[in-house]
Every structure is written in C-alpha cells, then in structure tokens.
C-alpha cells in the first residue's frame, strides 16, 4: 500500500505543497493561470497546530467514512491506486462526507470541475493520474524538506523503525542540527506565550 506520509517535524510551513496542488489541479497547469482564480482547487492545507505545522489532506482511508456516507454514489475508490475519488457530476453537495471525515479534508466550492454553476465537494485525489503513471503526487514532489513522503508503507515503516531502534539499541540519534533544534524550541515557547501559557 502506497501512502503520503507526513514527517511533521520536518514541515517548515513554506506552503510549496499548497501551490503545487493548485497548479496541478488548475486546467492551465500553470501558476499564473491559477493566480487569482477563485475556482482554483487546493486540496492540501498547511495548518498551524500550536508550534507545529502540518500539511493536511485526504488520508485516503480504507474503509473510508466519506465513501460510505455519500448518498449519491459520488465517492469511489480506485482499486489500483487506493485513491478515494470524488465525481463532482454526481455530488449533491449534501456535506455528509465532510461531516464524517475525521480530518476535515473535504471542502465545498464551485471548482473548475463543477458543472452547472454550483458548489460541489472537492478533495485530494492523490494525483491519481500521476501516480498511475508511476509518478508521485504534486505536493510530495514540491516538498523541499522531506516532510511529505510518498511510498510503500512497509518500506517507510521499516526505515522509520530502524531509525528509532538505532536510538534505543545503539544510542545513535538521528538528531536535528543543533541550531534547527534551537529554532524549534524557540518557536514552541513563542507559541506558548502567545496562547498565554507562560
């Protein structure tokens, strides 16, 4: 199973993923085409979670609550890629999918794929066309700092487990550079103060 994994400590909140998604989803496939176009679809949002940043998009759950909840059959799964897909032509904008989504990854507006001038649900499609051609999702390709990784779950799990075990068994840390560590710590404290915690 291939997934987009988020190593959130590496997210620097540069929002390159958001821009790349907008370009990918826009009919013109260019940044200048997407600029100022309110129908531009952006399926990933970099959210501030206290001092951490997290690029959130559809997790393509299986089973997917949204798929089960949709009364009009607009949501389906591509069995090949595992992507949960939404057909805007069938969508009735009832928002049942959005209500059950554990990640609030579904939004509504008149996108370029919406017909008849109405709002429809839209969400990440895992760049299904790209990945079926062996590529990676646009957000992952755009990520500079390694916060977004697309790959086989077993391989990623193995890598992460080995790096964790290195620490436990051998005392070797995959430590962040000291100044980056300092930067993260200062950002944490600044956020705490802003929330009135200190």
């Amino acid at each position, binding site marked *: 199973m291939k997934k987009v994994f988020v190593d959130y400590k*590496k997210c*620097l*909140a*540069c*929002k390159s993923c958001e821009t790349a998604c907008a370009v990918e989803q826009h009919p013109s496939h260019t940044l200048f085409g997407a600029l100022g176009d309110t129908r531009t679809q952006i399926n990933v949002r*970099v*959210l*501030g979670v206290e001092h*951490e*940043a997290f690029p959130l998009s559809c997790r393509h759950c299986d089973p997917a609550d949204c798929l089960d909840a949709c009364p009009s059959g607009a949501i389906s799964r591509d069995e090949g890629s595992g992507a949960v897909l939404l057909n805007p032509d069938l969508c009735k904008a009832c928002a049942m999918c959005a209500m059950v989504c554990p990640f609030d990854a579904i939004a509504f507006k008149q996108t370029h794929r919406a017909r008849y001038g109405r709002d429809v649900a839209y969400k990440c499609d895992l760049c299904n066309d790209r990945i079926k051609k062996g590529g990676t999702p646009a957000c992952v390709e755009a990520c*500079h*700092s*390694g916060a977004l990784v697309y790959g086989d779950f077993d391989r990623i799990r193995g890598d992460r487990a080995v790096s964790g075990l290195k620490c436990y068994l051998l005392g070797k840390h995959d430590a*962040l*550079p000291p*100044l*980056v560590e*300092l*930067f993260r710590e*200062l*950002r944490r*404290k*600044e956020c705490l*103060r*802003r*929330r*009135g915690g200190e």
Partner: protein
Amino acid sequence: MCEVGCGKHDHRSADPAAVEMLAIADREQYATQWSRYEQQQPQCSYGQLGTCCRICSMGPCRIDPFGNGPTQGVCGATADTIVARNLARMAAVGSSSHSDHGRKAALLLKAVATGANTNYRLTDTVKLTAVADRLGIATDGRSFPEVAGDVADAALNCFGKQDDEPIIFLQKFMPKRRYEHLKKMEQTLLESTGATTGLLPRGIDREAVDILHRTHFGCDADPLSLIAQTIRCSLADGWGGSLIATSVQDILLGTPTIKSIQANLGVLEVESVNVVVHGHEPILSAKIVEMAQEPEIRLLAVAAGAKRVNVVGLCCTGNEVLLRQGVGMAGNEAHSELAIMTGAVDAMIVDVQCIYPALADLASCFHTRFITTSDQAKIPGAIHIQFHEDQADTISRTILKEAIAAFPRRNPARIHIPHHTATAIVGFTVEEILKALGGTPAPLIDLIVKGTIKGVAGIVGCNNVKVQQDSFHRTLTTELIKRDILVIGTGCWAVGAAKAGLMDLSAQELAGDGLKSVCTSLGIPPVLHMGSCVDCSRMLVLAGAIAEHLDVDISQLPLVGSAPEWTTEKAVAIGAYFVGSGIPVHLWPVPPILGGAAVTRILTQDAKEVLGGYFFVEEDPIITADKMEAVIMERRAALGI
C-alpha cells in the same frame, strides 16, 4: 495586566492601556497586528531561518535545514552564503533608512544656511559650534550661517564622496582607539587572507550600494566578507547617517533638554482636537507642534468647539518632539492602531518608517484623518498632503486645519480613552548628561570605577508582535537597574519604559542601592531617555566620550546593548554598529540567521575577538539581565575594577 480597569491579563501586551483597548478591539472585531499575526500562522521557517534566496530568477532556492535535501541553491550558494547575503541586505536597508533621514536634515541645514529656506532657523548655535569644532571647521569670526553651510557640506560629503578615506563624521567622532582598532583589523585581515576587507565606511550611500552590488547574483559568497561589509555599512549609519540626523536636527530644532512629560494613551483629551504625529522625521512633526500654538489655529479649534489642539507623539517622531517640545507621548509602535481605536484621534500625521499600512483602513472606520506627507511613504486609503520643507509653515497649518475639521465629526459614543499615563523625566542627551555631571564624564567614570554603578546598558528597539508588548522592555529594564546598572536608551523601548513609569523619579526606589544613591543626588531617574532611534548615535557619542576620557577602546568599557523586542531592518543596522563599535548586543527575537551555522558562529562568537562586540540571543528577560551583567562584570574584571 490591566491595573486599573478590567484586571485582565493579556498575552498581547503588558501595557494596561493596551489591554483595555484590545478588549474593545476584540468586541468590535477590529483587525489588529495581533489578529493578522494569527492569520499568518504557520509562518514559513525558511524565511525565519534565513535560508530562502530570492535574489535571481533561477530561484527561489531554499536549503533543507535537516541536511537531507538540497544543500546549495541553483548557483551553488550554501546556506551560510544565503543567510549572510540576506542579513547584509537587511542592514543595508536599515542603514539607508536612518541615513536618508539624515540626508534630508543635512539638505535642510544647507538650505537654511544659504537662506533658501526661511521656515526653519539655526536654533542651537552652541551645538552648531560644537559640531563644527569637532569636524575641524573654523568658527572664529565667521557667521553662523557660514559655519552651518560648511557643516552641511561636510555632512553631505559623507554621503556622496568617492574616495576611499573613512567619512569625516566617523573620523572625528569615533574615539581614537576604536578607529585605530578597526584600521588595524583591516590590515590584519588583508595580511592573513590576502584579500581586502573593509570595516571603516568610505561613504554612507556607497556602503549600502556596495552591499546591493556584492549580494547581486554571482558576487560575494564568503560569509565573513559579507558580515564585514554588513558591519561597515552599519557603522556608516551609526557614526554617519544617524549621527548626522541627530546633530543637524539639534542644530535646527534645538538640542533636547531635561523635561517632564506624560506618556500613554491617557494624553489624548476628550475636549481637544487630538493630533497624533507618527513616524520618524521631526522636520515636519516639530513644525506641527509649533503651528498648533499659533493664535489662528487656536481660534479655529475653539470655533470648532474644542478646548485646544493637543499634539501628541507616537513612535520616534513622537520621541523627537517629546524631547524638544515636551508634548505628551501616546505610545510606541504597537500603540498606533490602539490610538485610532480610542475614537478620539482627529488626525494622525505620518512621515516615514514603521507606519502600518493597516492604519488607513482602520482610520476609515472612524472620523480620523489619516494623513501621509512623504513621497517615500504613500499609503492607499490615506489623505496625502505633500510636505515641502520650504513651505513647512503653510503645510503644517493646512494639516492642522484638516484635523480641526474632523473634530466635529467625532462619534461621542465610540470614544474611549484609557485613563493611563505615567510621568517621565526625559531629554538625557549627551550634552544634558555631561551638564548634570558638571561638564565632564569624570564623575560618572568614578562611580563606575567605585562600583556604585556597575556599568551602563543601552537598550533600543521596537515592539514586536511575537513578544508581549513592552513586557521584555519592562522586565529587563527593571532587572538591570536593580543590579546597579544604569539603563540608557532610545526608540520604542524608551516609550515603553516611560509608560511603565521607569523614567519617573519614583523609579529610583526600584534601583539597587548604589544606582539609587546616584540618581537621588543628581535628581534623575535610573532609566534615561536619549531620544529616537537615530539618536542611538547619542549613545555612541557618550560611549566615545567615556572611552576618550580614559584613553581606552569602547570594547573595554563595561557597556552592553540590547534590542529586546526588535522588528525592523533598522534594528539590524543598529545592532551591527553597536557590535562594530565594540559593544556586545542582546537580541530577541532571533534574527533570521540560524539556518547558517557559520554565520551564527561568526556573529555570536568570532566577532568577539575581531570587534570586541558580538551578538547573543536570549528569550528570558531575567536570564538576559544575568548575561548582560556578566558582560559588564567580565569587562570590569579585565579593567581591574
């Protein structure tokens, strides 16, 4: 904590007047810098680490701080190159802002000297003579305009001269030992690296242009060389542009004297036409204050139903008129939006620097006339009344009439002026400090030698939305005076300290026994207001006077600096010229340098050996005071006192 009103704690500000106004902002849903800051979250870490390069169109390039992604930009620039180039550009902008302000003052001095401008005059001829003497300009048997013309020429020459000699203001004002040290360092760097590295500024404009050139695509990639030029450009600000601004403004508008003023939003008056002057250049704001006293304007105000025209200050132009003309001080930078929200500001007149564009939108929610005056700071939504120095009187009257015309349009239901003010004794220029000491720094030096005063801390700087407004200023200042460290400073820090009552004589009680006894006998507060941010040059001149008196380098004196809530590029330049002058400087928040390990090391460690000054970063005010005291004690020990 709101001490009088609601008793609320607010993480956004430590100032009770601000806390009161923020409750109104929340209720009425006014956008503020704090709400916009929340909307900006999360902010990009590449920018905060300094590792984003937007210099050429092959980019933008970013360096992965985790070491797994790209380690170089397209051109091959490393994280350190990018960080150092970005920092140099910040200093160039900061230095240019101060210096361009100084240039305008010098041009005006020239115009007054030649008689081309009759709206201003040579107010302080004692200062004129003192500056001329220092510069080696003959004064005997010459008229003041003649001397002033030469001083103006000398100043203007510092901006545009093309030879490689250090600028004359720096040559004549920087203490001899520091000058020689920097000259020697240039020589040492040449010998050890074989490459020319300059530290002494050749021209104020030139050093900024030099940075623009050397940070252009494909020029200087060496972090050390870039940092050296950053220091050089900043020295051209401190001992050049800013010093010229201060000196010339003193000549034209008068050297400030010690006086008592009121600070905080409570200086706004319900029954008067309230005019807030905001920005940096007193050439305009001082005129506004002067013209508000004219019978014509006073009669107009009365005819509009007001008691009088009440001109109050905000930010550094406020500091300028506060020191010279004793007007009330509405607040520092973070108070600018809050002042308009009182509904009692009839006009806010702005010149340049630190003016939020958001003020135009906010003012449109009220009857407030938001008036821009500088061709360098036009803001959409504002009324623009172009200022010309040669028509200063007429234009000031026009502006004041706008304010008076707005007064009857006030909505009384929306007026809320927080009843907070604090008394502050201000105006401690070098001249006034020396006068209080009997004409020589010797008594101050004796007190430092005896340990009655351990040392002097110079604090500058802004408000920053990332720090609870004034909290760092207040806690750090209180903590330092408690430890018998005299605190001097300028800018928005000074306003913060004034609002907190730390510049009142009653603050003597907060000082340690030694400092308290000195302040009591001299009748001064333990925290001294030296002026606006260009007046940081006054601190340099004071440090220079002490160093020369003892015939030592500034880097040996028990002095330390801090910019605890800094925001602007000007603060980068100030910090860098303090460091270049041999004074260690504390900074908070962290400047965008952590992405470059070598740059961070040079600025925080290596600089100590080369320059005597260096930067350190600390977020806790008490630990900052510990570190600042440690710097002072280390230097005392080295001097054997």
